[in-house]
């Protein structure tokens, strides 16, 4: 479980995060949503330890990150997996080598054992015959699946995804969403996804945190988001005519 208490972050005069508190539960897909410039990426980078917040604290299973020693921080980070927006695969390595990379860095497994483990997770993300391809030879959807495989290969406790669906067609995006949700449930990971894809919100948002102008404007789930009368949320989530109609139908059915 990740608990965030009153975190603030500024860059020069720009006060990006203005005191956000939230908790992200184990075994659930937690989504952070909000408009561009609302502070989602800075918030995610604070959770990852890539940015140090100016005020407030973040704890991982009760351990406050800012109070850890450098070695403890490094150990904690080895328990995190991250799926970047652009996948961030190492382009000088094959897909198999990319997936084996965390194992090479943090375990003492033999090469055969690492290959077996990488095989298992590559099969889990439905990549069977791509082991020896380089990232440049793989499609966007395949790259995302490799990034997920790399993120989960070392059995992380925390999985972070930054816009996992960006640049993907709707069908592949749903496949990736479902894959993340299945993995979260199967491995009992605390998953935090940064997204502004409303399909993801509706499909897998077991917990949703809505940010606006550096503040938490709303918190709920993909079920309660239909019922909320918070105008800030409804303006953003139901900005398209399709979603307005879907919401109307849902509310009529459930009234």
């Amino acid at each position: 479980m990740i608990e965030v208490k009153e975190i603030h972050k500024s860059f020069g005069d720009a006060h990006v995060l203005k005191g956000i508190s939230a908790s992200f539960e184990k075994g659930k897909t937690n989504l952070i949503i909000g408009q561009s410039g609302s502070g989602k990426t800075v918030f995610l980078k604070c959770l990852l330890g890539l940015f140090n917040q100016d005020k407030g604290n973040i704890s991982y299973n009760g351990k406050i990150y800012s109070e850890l020693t450098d070695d403890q921080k490094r150990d904690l980070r080895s328990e995190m997996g991250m799926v970047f927006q652009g996948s961030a695969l190492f382009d000088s390595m094959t897909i198999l080598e990319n997936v084996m990379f965390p194992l090479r860095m943090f375990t003492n497994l033999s090469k055969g054992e690492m290959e077996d483990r990488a095989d298992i997770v590559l099969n889990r993300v439905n990549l069977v015959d791509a082991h020896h391809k380089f990232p440049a030879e793989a499609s966007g959807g395949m790259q995302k699946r490799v990034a997920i495989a790399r993120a989960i290969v070392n059995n992380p406790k925390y999985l972070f995804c930054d816009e996992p669906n960006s640049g993907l067609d709707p069908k592949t995006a749903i496949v990736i969403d479902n894959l993340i949700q299945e993995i979260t449930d199967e491995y009992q990971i605390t998953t935090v996804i940064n997204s502004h894809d409303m399909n993801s919100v509706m499909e897998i948002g077991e917990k949703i945190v809505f940010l606006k102008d550096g503040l938490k404007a709303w918190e709920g789930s993909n079920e309660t988001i239909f019922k909320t009368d918070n105008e800030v949320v409804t303006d953003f989530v139901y900005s398209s005519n399709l979603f307005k109609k879907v919401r109307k139908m849902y509310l009529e059915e459930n009234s």
Partner: protein
Amino acid sequence: MSYLHNIGTYFLMIAEMFRKPTKWPVMRTLILKDIDDLIIGSLGIVAFLSFFVGGVVTIQTALNIDNPLIPKYLVGFATRQSIVLEFAPTFMSIIMAGKVGSFITSSIGSMRVTEQIDALEVMGINSLNYLVFPKLVAMMLYPFVISIAMFLGIIGGLAACVYGGFSTLTDYITGIQEGFISFHIIYAFIKTFVFAFILATIPSFHGFYMKGGALEVGKASTTAFVWTSVVIIVVNYFLTDMLLS
């Protein structure tokens, strides 16, 4: 102020590079790869340039010695001195700033742009140790490249001298043995080690701390080449003043 900030960041980068070392089996692979990319991959161009520049130095020296009282073996002597003292260690390093330096900046810069460095950091890996340290270790073999440059420069001079009819083989051989001071070789290799450090770290700094996209990677490579060359020339002056004056 930004220059001072960059100089400070550069020295902090060097200190950080030695912290939290990467596992040896992984580091060994990285070092071998960088030796292949930076050292072995440079041998061809170094050999080619050294041979022909050695020839040009010899021809120009021979053509400028028109006094019959100056012995012909002086052509070999002047060629050796030019190549061992300056051409091989200094000017070859400036050429390498273009080849190796821009390769280092663009490869690390591309990793920055595509979030690969962030991916390393998130995993708890010291990205500076992972990316820059193996390049520094690989560049410690750079004196080997420069000794090849010295050898082929002198051979190029010999070929130009003898086949161009500027002096005899015996005169040239006598010249390259004349007034040999072994400290000049030590001086050249001290410079080479310092230049190797500069060649590995300044381009890495420009790649690692760059911001922006693909266009900025190109700009960072150009800036890295300019600054690496400038630092090599300035350090060359101070080292020469310290070691030979």
